[in-house]
């Protein structure tokens, strides 16, 4: 049994999340992964942007840095590059990472810097009351898309993969055992690792789109998020509307801090003056 209180900053409870929000489930899953990998609290740094999901650092007893909207990966790049010994985790939302922070997102992936990015995708801007996000599906309603969203959504896992990340996975807060494995695998990977985590927002998304209670939203995840291997075996008809989960991409490629260290070594033997 895990003593979660060993990792929790209980003095900051009650937390800000609504009843039925998925974000607390991710927090516990993350704690289990830290414990599983034996990562010392002093060696872990969590960096977040702005949003409901980005409030996670306030509740976990490691080194924590709550930054500005969209910029967590840039701050995290500074932390990791300055002290590569530290295990750096970024917590961000779909709006945080792929709207305002889209540039940092693709470039952190391109550099393949050793950061684990936990991207909570709730298809909406939760903190600010339900405005449309780059991941809001077409046709769904938001406070700034009251007649239905007309824009296509980003595939944020695909984006990270295309930009150069070495590990990309998708999980959700219903299939928690799988989520634990995905977060642990991402933490164990050297390079830019992304875990897109589908985490429902009953308050600002579910309610507006008449998706029912928080339990109904959980059931939606249960029925529609399907492990990629399983999904691959389904008929086209069965696949419709389903979201693939699991490890979507896992390759070895040069990591940024390691490449810089190699450059430094090369310069030591290089007699040419700078």
């Amino acid at each position, binding site marked *: 049994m895990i003593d979660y209180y060993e990792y929790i900053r209980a003095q900051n409870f009650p937390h800000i999340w609504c009843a039925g929000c998925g974000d607390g489930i991710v927090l516990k899953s993350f704690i289990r992964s830290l414990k599983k990998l034996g990562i010392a609290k002093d060696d872990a740094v969590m960096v977040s942007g702005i949003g409901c999901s980005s409030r996670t650092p306030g509740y976990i007893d490691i*080194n924590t840095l709550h930054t500005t909207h969209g*910029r967590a990966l840039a701050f995290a790049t500074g932390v990791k590059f300055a002290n590569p010994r530290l295990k750096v985790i970024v917590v961000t939302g779909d709006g945080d990472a792929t709207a305002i922070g889209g540039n940092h997102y693709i470039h952190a992936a391109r550099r393949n810097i050793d950061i684990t990015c936990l991207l909570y995708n709730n298809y909406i801007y939760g903190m600010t009351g339900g405005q449309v996000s780059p991941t809001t599906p077409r046709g769904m309603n938001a406070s700034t898309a009251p007649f239905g969203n007309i824009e296509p959504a980003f595939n944020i896992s695909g984006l990270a993969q295309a930009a150069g990340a070495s590990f990309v996975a998708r999980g959700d807060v219903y299939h928690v055992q799988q989520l634990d494995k995905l977060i642990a695998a991402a933490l164990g990977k050297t390079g830019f690792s992304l875990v897109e985590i589908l985490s429902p927002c009953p308050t600002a998304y579910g309610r507006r789109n008449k998706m029912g209670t928080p339990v109904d939203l959980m059931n939606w995840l249960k029925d529609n998020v399907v492990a990629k291997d399983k999904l691959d075996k389904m008929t086209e008809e069965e696949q419709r509307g389903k979201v693939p989960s699991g490890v979507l991409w896992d390759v070895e490629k040069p990591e940024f801090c390691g490449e810089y260290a190699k450059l430094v070594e090369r310069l*030591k033997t290089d007699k040419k003056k700078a």
Partner: protein
Amino acid sequence: MSTTPKGKVIMIAGNEACAEGALYAGCRFFAGYPITPSSEIAEHLCRKLPRLGGKFIQMEDEIGAMGAVIGASLTGMKALTATSGPGFSLKQENIGHAVMAEVPCVVVDVQRGGPSTGTPTLPAQMDVQQARWGSHGDHGVICLSAATAQETFEQTIRAFNLAETYMTPVLLLIDEIVGHTTEKMVIPEPGAIEVVNRAKPAVPPAKYVPYAPTESGIPVLADFGTGYRYNVTGLCHTETGFPTNDPKRIEANILHLTDKIERHRDEIMRWKAFRLDDAKIAVFAYGAVARSARRAVIEAREAGIAAGLFEPTTLWPFPYEAILETAGRVKAFVAAEMNLGQMAREVELGAKCKAEVHRVNRVDGDPITPKQILEKIKEVA
């Protein structure tokens, strides 16, 4: 100008002098994004840092560069970024984060003309008020200026010293003329100029409170990864570093951000006086314009006019008291700037109508000449 230090004499441009000053101060992290006329700072450091145990990264934009600098500083490294007008605008939000979270770092702005893309290759001093109020919200700011390569070197070191002392971002504003003028400079021996490092916690982790009030009002932030686990945020926070909605705590936090600079203003503010003691006309100038002003003062004296130069090397906090004291002795100020009078209004505030404040302004990308200043001196004498 301070007395010339002993050391190796070299020819160097202001931008490279800035990079050398940063290295002298112990800066080992640079994150930036290329922009004229500041890029030579990055180009100098990308060659030097990897050989000195340092880190250099060109980020995807200036917002990211400012974020990376703050992240690096929290691990204990002295970190620098350099930019010009458009990039300075982009950095503002994260400069505010460093202010709020009290993270030391140095931001250099090699000024060009604006607004927008403006005049990328021409000098200006149009960012001096942005330096004060560019990031939203009430807060104190430290901003330095330099007029020569030597001074840029020294002011860069001072910027780091002030950042580490007062746990705040420090801005250094130079301009295209200073940044690109190659001139003689003496690199002082290591140790000749004092280098300040931020305080380390004096208590064990169990007793550590990151933003606990200290006698000086300056917090002691431990380096990430050293066993002191705490929270850093841009939200209003208590001394624990965690966010608060308590009006009293919010007020305390906001007041502190101004107070921590204001209560130390006498230690922070510096200005140079040249033939000012018996002057009837005080030229007010900083940066490259101060070079022309010095010449104008000499020529005015030769023409029998008692002119002097008031040259602030700290732009913020602004030396209002010294301006008032000077205003009591002179007939008029002549404030010369490569903008439309951004600091002249601070001179007016300081002078409290005890002396007239006349302006010499230039915004066409050409430098203000000694002749222009001299003419104004003659006109108002």
